[in-house]
């Protein structure tokens, strides 16, 4: 594989960049694979990459209905963080942070990981207490956390509304300085390029229409491009999880909802890190191109539409304006939606299933992007070893029946409220 570097860039400049190798091939599906990963998003591509790299399983196919990176990995707001309170979520995502820090070098692809920090704002004494508790939990798990008072927040985001008239004054906030953002498309492409180089077949425009299950064991899948035999099959399909589960006669603790995001026109550098509003659901960061990247609530009803309605955008941006009044003078560049696999406790599921050889990776809610590397890493381990890794040992499917929920936000089973 051609290595990307400043030298290859100069070399290819002489031929007007016409002779770059293709980053990944476009093979036809073979009749049989050791492992088939369904879903060519970030998590699926990362899983295939770690299967090849960590477990030397290279007879692998990724089956993608659309094109790789066209789903949630290209639709999220690129936030990377590990500011979780529960041990299982904290350890899992902090392991992921370590993978992020080295990802550009490892993939030889600039994912533009930019750890500029995330600030969760607090607007009451009670919220400050809750953040102090969360910050302490994070530090016990070795994650950097800093409780900021009002003046410290003001130094970091002076453009926020610190006047006396605001309905929800800023009391302070909890900061994770090592959190940040990355270029989401590059994550998908970087994993795809390396996985392809190690022998993984990336098969796009191939829809899974059914499964071959014999005596409780997976034998293969049926697709729009023919039947494919497989010893093991991994599901990494986020918002389409329920659709495939139905084909397997499985019912899951998952509901599919649409989440919207939006960006403003690009402006000069203004906001350094990620900021979340604590009195409503609104978060914001500034992309390297200068656009303000914003998001917030789910639309609030089951949806597979990948697009939402304007009342939600209006509601989210009302919170945004309360925090950053300057936003009122910016033009909206575009809005879009992605479909979220909302689990009933807000935490993901990476597990085996009751069908031998079938593995499940779902329930990422609206926080899947940050976990892309660690999700792929642990899912690859679960598939290769046929057992969960310590890191995903609490992200089991049966936690709903045993009562060991990871309800980080304590919202209950009304997934659309979160």
């Amino acid at each position: 594989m051609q290595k990307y570097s400043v030298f290859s860039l100069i070399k290819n400049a002489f031929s007007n960049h016409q002779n770059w190798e293709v980053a990944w091939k476009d093979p036809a599906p073979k009749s049989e694979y050791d492992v088939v990963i369904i879903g060519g998003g970030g998590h699926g591509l990362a899983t295939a990459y770690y299967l090849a790299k960590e477990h030397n399983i290279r007879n692998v196919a990724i089956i993608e209905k659309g094109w790789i990176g066209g789903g949630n990995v290209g639709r999220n707001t690129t936030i990377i963080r590990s500011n979780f309170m529960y041990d299982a979520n904290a350890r899992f995502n902090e392991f992921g942070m370590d993978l992020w820090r080295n990802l550009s070098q490892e993939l030889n692809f600039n994912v533009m990981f930019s750890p500029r920090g995330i600030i969760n704002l607090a607007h009451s004494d009670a919220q400050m207490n809750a953040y102090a508790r969360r910050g302490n939990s994070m530090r016990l798990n070795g994650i950097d956390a800093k409780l900021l008072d009002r003046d410290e927040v003001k130094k970091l985001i002076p453009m926020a509304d610190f006047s006396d008239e605001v309905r929800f004054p800023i009391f302070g906030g909890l900061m994770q300085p090592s959190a940040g953002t990355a270029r989401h498309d590059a994550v998908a492409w970087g994993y795809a390029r390396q996985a392809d180089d190690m022998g993984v077949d990336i098969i796009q425009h191939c829809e899974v229409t059914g499964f071959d299950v014999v005596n409780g064991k997976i034998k293969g899948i049926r697709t729009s491009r023919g039947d494919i035999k497989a010893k093991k099959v991994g599901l990494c399909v986020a918002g389409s999880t329920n659709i495939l589960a139905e084909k397997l006669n499985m019912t899951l603790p998952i509901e599919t909802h649409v989440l919207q995001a939006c960006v403003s026109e690009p402006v000069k550098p203004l906001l350094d890190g990620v900021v979340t509003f604590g009195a409503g659901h609104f978060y914001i960061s500034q992309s390297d191109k200068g656009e303000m990247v914003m998001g917030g609530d789910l639309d609030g009803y089951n949806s597979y539409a990948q697009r939402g309605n304007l009342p939600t955008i209006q509601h989210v941006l009302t919170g945004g304006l309360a925090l950053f009044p300057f936003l009122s003078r910016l033009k909206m560049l575009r809005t879009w939606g992605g479909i979220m696999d909302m689990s009933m406790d807000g935490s993901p599921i990476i597990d085996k299933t009751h069908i031998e050889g079938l593995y499940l990776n779902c329930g990422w809610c609206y926080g899947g992007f940050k976990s892309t590397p660690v999700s792929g890493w642990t899912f690859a381990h679960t598939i290769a070893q046929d057992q969960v890794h310590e890191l995903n040992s609490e992200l089991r499917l049966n936690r709903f029946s045993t009562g060991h929920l990871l309800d980080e936000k304590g919202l209950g089973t009304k997934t659309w409220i979160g």
Partner: protein
Amino acid sequence: MLYIKCPYCGLRAQKEFSYGGDATVKRPNINEEVSSEDWDNFVYMRKSPRGKHIELWQHIAGCRQWIKVQRDTATHEIFQTAKVTEEIR
């Protein structure tokens, strides 16, 4: 914007309603022995189909009644609405 026909008030904007989830989930009868699996299915397990979905909404900024809505989760088209005591087929 969705427009939902409240069976009590007529056609109203989505902003007047709040969502209540899958209307086909049935609470186990508490006067009988209920298995853990039944509770599980009631509390956590959802079909979440792509296509027609019968769901609960509350006309929170109107008559405050709970209603049933049959809606397509892929296109957001609303086919039918009914009082919560009525069946949608």
